[in-house]
């Protein structure tokens, strides 16, 4: 831990938040208690069942989820009276397996469930590959779990166990599960006692016991395992102590932000390095990264070595580390630059197994790393096994390209002929001729690789010797001194061809990476430019299926969080119920599952959650005939990068939708509020006037004089009229807004509409003069007459209301072939200067309208009606003062003026 980082001795807010979140999650999650022991037979199951019994007696709802079949009689006695979940019988390759029935347990939903053997591997065909995954699902469902575990099953001590006991343990449990258990109870008995128990046959059935005890239950083994178990428990206690100290802000060393990096290669002992890194990281509470450097040589590695790298990286991920594959020709440089970028404080590397001679000759990577590492600590770890493992000498069988060899022959023949010409005809010295031969060899080496280059160099030396060295045209004795020439030629050929080879491989790798980067970039760019969800889905499907050469489906959730297919590549298989179930599981749990994973591996496809910042947006499934395709972590990471892009894009659209909805809600809310205040004001005001006048008449009608009585009655009728107008406006608006109003288009003379409007005003007793200028031959309007009348009435209402009684109001109309323009103008105070068209907004009321009645719907209604007729309405201030409203309607007759024959005969037809 470096000193400068030690000042973080108090929890920072982020970490506190993380801890609160973790605790919150814990409170809704079930609690996990592990009964932990050094080996079978120490009494874990007994202790677990005993405690479960106690809980049951306390009234807790306890279920025995799974008890090992080789249970001992005393233990079995504890089961009496407890509810036991029936086994799930799984048939696999003809054999029947008794397994824990996860779905039944989830459906039963007890408070506490007991499940033996946490590290157990499930039979094929069950949902999860491992029992601990079942347990995690139970915990997520809020069920408390008691379980048992032997120390040798812990992943991180797996190698130590193997080394000390010689027994390879295949069923392993990620340490993280053990570390995050809420409670671990160590069950311990002295090894002697355990050996005794084994001898008495109390642990396994008799026939197994001899064989097992010989192999496993000896004092040495058991002591070693006991130590491991005790130590792991002590580590946990230590960690808890640490947490406690941190919670109570006791000044204590604080985990640093630096990381541990482990370099893994194709060596089988790399797994050991990973485990060592994991142990060190746990001890230091640091994050750790497993790094593999892909050099051009990596391409030459045999398939099993490549597979081993993949396995090691997967192991690292499994153990909770990050993994990364770097590429470059200089592994040491790549490792160090990445380490510096990631704030790595410690690098773990395996001790090399090369011979001293080789080290001297080409140097050791470890030495190089140590020399250049600067401030980073380098830990060199002895490789226990695989010491005999050598860097692969095996190279892929060069594909024999006859064209290359033919060219080698041809080029050699040409240089030889040129040599003959130069030497014999022009008398040029044969040392110069040799340069031409060398040139030929280099050419062949550069162009056609190693084999043809070797052939060319041998042939050149022979040809040279034969043609231009005396004695001419024979391999004379003097040829012996050209051995050196031959060696130089061969060396040159090899160097050139190797360099070329390496360059081309590097180029190939660079191209591959670039292709991936470009592919990702293209996806990101295309997604960023797309605003619709369906298109985003299509783009993601297309890109993933093209780049990974596989079939893709994307599933998105509906309101009830049930997935439904949102997009698929053309040849994607139809998802049956089972596949859909897997996808749904992935969505519900936000974890990948399906083919090539440990969860539901029998599924046809691999399903990845579309994780975005606010949770899971959906699921992406890929189908490929080659299931191994995504077991390569790097490929999987690339896929995940694609999936993340898609997830973010989907989320972005969802957020945009939500923002739009929120805006609409806010808008609706605003309108509702304005409407409510408006309705309450504009209905209550006239209503209170009516009530007031009416009650006055009712109670003191006899005492008031006739003139006052008339005045009160006039108020009642006026206010009632006002209320009517208000209600009509509201109804009109509602009808228009609901979109249910279809205009009933008929041909109308504009004069008739205007006449009808003026008639109404006349009936209402309006005395104002309204000037009308419409030509008698004005074309017919194809409109809904009553609606257009409404427009004019509202406009004139406003003009009458807002202008002085003496100022003129006019209606004018013009027409051309395309459109009809109607202007309603006044000489009043005009409209708001900055944006006259604001008056069309719903509930708009000008500052001057405070003294006037109205709810600011009239002009909105006008606009809605005009737009219903595919026309426009605009408001502006007139030069010289006053407001003008301009209605533009399409001229359906296509004539500028009406031509009408007085002869009605054409009508009769």
């Amino acid at each position: 831990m470096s000193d400068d980082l030690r000042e973080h001795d108090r929890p920072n807010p982020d970490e506190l938040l993380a801890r609160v979140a973790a605790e919150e999650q814990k409170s809704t999650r079930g609690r996990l208690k592990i009964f932990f022991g050094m080996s079978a037979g120490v009494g874990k199951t007994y202790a677990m069942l005993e405690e479960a019994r106690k809980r049951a007696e306390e009234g807790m709802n306890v279920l025995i989820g799974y008890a090992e079949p080789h249970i001992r009689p005393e233990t079995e006695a504890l089961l009496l009276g407890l509810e036991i979940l029936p086994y799930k019988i799984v048939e696999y390759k003809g054999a029947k397996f008794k397994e824990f029935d996860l779905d039944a347990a989830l459906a039963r939903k007890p408070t506490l469930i007991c499940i033996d053997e946490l590290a157990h591997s499930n039979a094929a065909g069950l949902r999860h590959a491992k029992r601990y995954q079942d347990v995690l699902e139970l915990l997520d469902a809020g069920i408390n779990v008691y379980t048992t575990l032997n120390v040798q099953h812990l992943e991180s001590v797996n190698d130590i166990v193997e080394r000390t006991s010689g027994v390879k343990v295949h069923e392993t449990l990620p340490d993280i599960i053990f570390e995050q258990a809420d409670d671990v109870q160590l069950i311990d008995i002295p090894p002697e006692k355990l050996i005794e128990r084994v001898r008495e046959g109390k642990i396994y059935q008799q026939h197994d016991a001899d064989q097992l005890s010989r192999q496993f239950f000896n004092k040495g083994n058991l002591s070693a395992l006991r130590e491991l178990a005790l130590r792991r428990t002590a580590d946990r206690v230590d960690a808890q102590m640490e947490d406690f100290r941190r919670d109570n802000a006791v000044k204590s060393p604080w985990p640093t932000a630096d990381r541990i990096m482990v370099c893994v290669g194709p060596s089988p002992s790399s797994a050991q390095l990973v485990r060592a890194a994991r142990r060190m990281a746990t001890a230091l509470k640091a994050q750790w990264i497993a790094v593999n450097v892909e050099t051009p040589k990596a391409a030459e590695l045999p398939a099993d070595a490549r597979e081993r790298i993949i396995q090691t990286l997967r192991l690292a991920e499994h153990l909770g580390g990050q993994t990364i594959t770097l590429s470059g020709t200089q592994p040491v440089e790549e490792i160090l630059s990445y380490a510096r970028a990631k704030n790595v404080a410690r690098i773990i590397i395996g001790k090399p197994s090369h011979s001293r001679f080789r080290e001297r000759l080409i140097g050791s990577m470890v030495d190089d790393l140590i020399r250049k590492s600067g401030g980073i600590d380098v830990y060199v770890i002895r490789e226990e096994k695989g010491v005999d493992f050598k860097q692969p000498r095996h190279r892929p069988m060069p594909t024999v390209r006859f064209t290359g060899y033919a060219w080698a022959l041809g080029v050699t023949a040409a240089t030889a002929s040129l040599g003959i010409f130069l030497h014999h005809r022009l008398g040029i010295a044969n040392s110069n001729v040799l340069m031409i031969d060398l040139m030929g060899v280099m050419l062949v080496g550069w162009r056609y690789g190693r084999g043809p280059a070797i052939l060319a160099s041998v042939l050149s030396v022979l040809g040279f010797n034969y043609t231009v060295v005396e004695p001419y045209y024979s391999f004379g004795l003097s040829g012996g001194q050209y051995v050196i020439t031959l060696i130089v030629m061969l060396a040159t050929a090899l160097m050139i061809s190797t360099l070329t080879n390496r360059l081309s491989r590097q180029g190939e790798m660079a191209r591959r990476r670039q292709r991936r980067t470009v592919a990702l970039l293209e996806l990101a760019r295309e997604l960023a430019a797309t605003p619709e969800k369906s298109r985003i889905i299509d783009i993601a499907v297309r890109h993933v299926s093209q780049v990974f050469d596989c079939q893709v489906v994307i599933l998105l959730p509906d309101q009830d969080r049930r997935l439904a297919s949102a997009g698929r590549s053309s040849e994607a298989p139809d998802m049956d119920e089972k596949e859909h179930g897997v996808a749904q599981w992935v969505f519900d749990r936000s974890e990948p599952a399906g083919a090539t994973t440990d969860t539901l591996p029998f599924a046809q496809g691999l399903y990845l959650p579309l994780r975005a910042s606010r949770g899971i947006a959906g699921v992406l499934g890929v189908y490929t005939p080659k299931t191994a395709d995504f077991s390569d972590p790097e490929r999987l990471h690339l896929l995940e990068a694609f999936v993340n892009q898609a997830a973010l894009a989907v989320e972005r659209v969802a957020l945009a939708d939500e923002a739009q909805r929120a805006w609409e809600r806010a808008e609706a809310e605003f309108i509702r509020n304005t409407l409510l205040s408006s309705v309450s004001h504009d209905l209550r005001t006239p209503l209170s006037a009516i009530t007031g006048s009416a009650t006055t008449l009712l109670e003191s009608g006899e005492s008031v004089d006739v003139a006052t009585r008339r005045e009160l009655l006039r108020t009642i009728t006026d206010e009632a009229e006002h209320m009517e107008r208000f209600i009509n406006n509201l109804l009109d608006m509602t009808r228009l807004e609901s979109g249910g109003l279809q205009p009933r288009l008929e041909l109308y003379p504009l004069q008739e509409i205007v006449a009808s409007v003026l008639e109404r005003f006349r009936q209402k007793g309006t005395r104002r003069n309204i000037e009308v200028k419409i030509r008698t031959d004005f074309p017919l309007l194809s409109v809904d007459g009553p609606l257009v009348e409404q427009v004019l009435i509202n406009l004139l209402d406003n003009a009458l209301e807002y202008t002085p009684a003496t100022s003129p109001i006019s209606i004018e109309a013009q027409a051309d072939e395309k459109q009809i323009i109607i202007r309603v103008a006044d000489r009043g105070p005009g409209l708001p200067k900055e944006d006259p068209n604001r008056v069309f907004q719903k509930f708009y009321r000008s500052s001057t309208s405070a003294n006037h009645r109205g709810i600011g719907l009239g002009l909105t209604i006008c606009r809605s009606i005009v737009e219903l007729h595919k026309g426009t309405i605009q408001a502006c201030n007139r030069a010289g003062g006053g407001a003008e409203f301009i209605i533009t309607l399409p001229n359906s007759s296509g004539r500028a003026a009406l031509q009408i024959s007085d002869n009605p005969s054409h009508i009769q037809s």
Partner: protein
Amino acid sequence: MSAEYKPLVLVVEDEPAIHKFLSVSLEAQGCRLISSMTGKDGLLQAATRTPDAIILDLGLPDMDGIDFVRQLRGWSQTPVIIISARGRELDKVAALDAGADDYLTKPFSVGELQARLRAVLRRRTAQSAGDSPIYTVGELSVDLVSRNVKLADKEIHLTPNEYRMLAYLIQHAGRVVTHQQLLKEIWGPDSTQETHYLRVYVNQLRQKIEPTPTQPKYLLTEPGVGYRLAAGD
């Protein structure tokens, strides 16, 4: 309205408050009133009491007002004035076409109702007494015998269709005439859909008979329903 004869008016309406103010105002005007709350009862009263006019609400609880008019017209020519809420133009037109004589939109003033009532009652009395040959309103006068049309004592020339239209409107002066009724009357029953021809003719007619055609005083538009010629002086 003459003092000795008090016309009998049947009000078919389900709203008691409307009955109340109608009975007060119409009785003050010298009418006798029969109130009926349902369509069925209304038809029964119309048959047994033979009222001079019927005021009918279109929104009755037990039957459609239009059906009421149709059934009534099966055996009676008693004038019917429709009262209905706004925004039901189609219903009004249907009721008028079914045989109703006029309409009023709720809310309406009593003055309006009285004017309409007078118009239909006058037609009733006029029919019994024989039509007056000369119609005059304001500056317009039409001699239905000589077919002479004058505006401010100046003779006007009308085309045959214009005259037919005007004559029909004069027959129904003061009452609304629907587009369909006019079309049928002038161009026969087959051309009932071509309402825009009608509008063009009305427009032309206005150019001739109105002192200010853009602000008509005699030939008035009833929006969405039809036309009304002002009642003669």
